[in-house]
């Protein structure tokens, strides 16, 4: 009985008693959801363009952040380190295309997925072999202090992160809409065969899309690195992005954003108001359960393409 009361009544009583706190949690959740979206975006880009579920996105986040922080530690200012890191990600993308994707073209998706798990291990090892496992501090001057807006308090860092994510999505939208490469990418996403038949070189496209995903990973890595310091744990943020991905659908950029917001808000609200009833620390699985429950009703995710089965 107590248990039911704690689940069904107490949380709502808590929300009713302090609605401004609920709003605060909700905003905090939405803003941390944005941080998940940043990571999820990289997954979506690659899946859209090449049908590959790139498990190595988390490793790419760490890899990019390690290089960026490493260059900055070497005394290179951020405006120098940034293009250098982008260059590294470009080389990496071309390498992956040449060594992993090209030999595995036309293999089942599941094989490619497993190959990206291999890539992920390789990058984790390579990045740390080059830069070491010590924590690197990434200070890019983002404020950390709380800001009070009436009774509601939000964190300045989260706001900055949201702005960065918003600009990134806007930049991606412009890139896809107005550049020749962007249009080619969309063509590939819609239909590989058709894209090939009008003379778009698939290899180039793949290298570009992996680079773009690498850059998105870099942005995510810098934001997360500024928050936590650049270290091995950064690779684990990918695990937080996966439920976002299933919720939003693998092929939809708006899905990644909306999915991130739902997961972020959902898990924070659940952790703050419901976790006490069942022991706390539920964030890890709550996002997955939320996504799973959701999948049972919409197997293709929120914005994913509908699956029509044929024989």
């Amino acid at each position: 009985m107590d248990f039911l009361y704690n689940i069904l009544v107490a949380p709502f009583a808590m929300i009713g008693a302090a609605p401004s706190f609920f709003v605060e949690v909700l905003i905090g959740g939405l803003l941390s959801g944005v941080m998940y979206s940043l990571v999820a975006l990289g997954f979506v880009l690659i899946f859209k363009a090449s049908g590959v579920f790139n498990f190595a996105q988390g490793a790419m986040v760490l890899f990019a952040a390690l290089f960026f922080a490493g260059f900055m530690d070497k005394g290179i200012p951020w405006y120098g380190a940034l293009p250098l890191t982008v260059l590294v990600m470009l080389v990496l993308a071309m390498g992956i295309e040449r060594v992993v994707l090209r030999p595995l073209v036309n293999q089942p998706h599941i094989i490619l997925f497993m190959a990206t798990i291999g890539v992920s291990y390789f990058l984790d090892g390579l990045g740390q072999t080059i830069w070491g496992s010590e924590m690197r501090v990434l200070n890019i001057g983002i404020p950390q202090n709380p800001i009070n807006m009436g009774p509601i308090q939000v964190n300045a860092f989260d706001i900055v992160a949201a702005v960065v994510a918003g600009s990134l999505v806007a930049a991606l939208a412009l890139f896809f809409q107005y550049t020749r490469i962007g249009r080619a990418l969309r063509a590939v996403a819609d239909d590989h065969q058709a894209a090939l038949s009008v003379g778009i070189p698939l290899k180039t496209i793949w290298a570009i899309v992996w680079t773009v995903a690498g850059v998105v990973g870099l942005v995510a890595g810098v934001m997360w690195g500024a928050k936590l310091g650049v270290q091995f744990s950064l690779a684990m943020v990918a695990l937080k992005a996966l439920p976002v991905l299933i919720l939003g659908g693998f092929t939809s950029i708006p899905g990644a954003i909306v999915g991130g917001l739902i997961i972020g808000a959902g898990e924070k609200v659940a952790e703050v108001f419901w976790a006490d009833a069942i022991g706390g620390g539920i964030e890890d699985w709550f996002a997955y359960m939320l996504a799973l429950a959701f999948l049972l009703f919409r197997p293709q995710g929120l914005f994913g393409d509908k699956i029509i089965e044929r024989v």
Partner: protein
Amino acid sequence: MFYREAGQFKASYAADQQIFPIRQDRIAYYTLLAVAFAAVPMVANEYWMATILIPFLVMSIASLGLNILTGYAGQLSLGTGGFMATGAFAAYKLSTWDIGATFGLAEPMHLHMVFVFLGAGVITAAVGVLFGMPSLRIKGFYLAVATLAAQFFLLWLFNKVPWFTNYSTSGVISAPPRELFPGVVITGPMAHPVTKYLFLLSLVVLLALGAKNIMRCHLGRAWMAIRDMDIAAEIIGIRPMRTKLAAFALSSFYCGIAGAAWAFLYTGSVEPLAFSIEVSFKVLFMIIIGGLGSIMGSFLGAAFITLLPVLLTNGPRLLGLNIPVDIISHLEFMIFGALIIFFLIVEPHGLARLWQIAKEKLRLWPFPY
């Protein structure tokens, strides 16, 4: 020269359907068993037993389990660690259950270890069926991500509910000392590695035989049919729900036993974190490298993944190189990753397929045609 099947004719379907239709294979198999049961315990030292052979055997069970689900039935799962944890904690609860107290006997009484392991398997199978339910609607990557829900939830559960650890403050469980036969201790710190090894080996042989048998019966064929083309399988009359859930059940049964063996026969004490997502990936690598949909491959993969780190740590030292441990660990990551990509490109069917090709060549050797 020696590996010829010419002249071996089968007069009955039973003879044709046995596991090793070729006589030389049978001989090799029985020799291997004899070596494993008799020679290895005599030759291997304690380090070999305790840190190479026992984890190898445990991981073989786990990769058999995952191979049933992923390799044969085609359902990609990243929840192996969670299921192994279930097995470990179920075994702990079962082995510390005082039957005597429950039924009002004067003397404390405990379940025999064999039943503890079986029970752990059965409980895990039930949990596996529960988490296999979504597979009826969700496929492919979506399912893989969904099984992560099982992984995280189960670990959280065992970490959070003190009942599972008998209210231990630290959340760590350790194997109580129990006997297999009167006088032969099988778990706890006083158990001899050779006893553990022989018990585990018998378990592995039985489980592998069971898996092999199922794969040549109708259930095995139903799994492979679902894997190869689920829609066609359903249209020829295979019930997807029952078949997939059976795969989850049997796979989890194996994983549960593996988890119990990990906690009871290998480390001796575990906390839920020992079965983190890393373990799920490790088992997945084993079946990829060993060979998806191959019993033999489960063993080859487990051997490969268990031996590789040992090799990487000991190898350079033997050659007189003193590579710092952190570099070795990083190299290990890189080599793991590179090997996985390498195997997928060169031979998507893994070591088991290479073995098969080797045998086919051997049949013809020394004449190439």
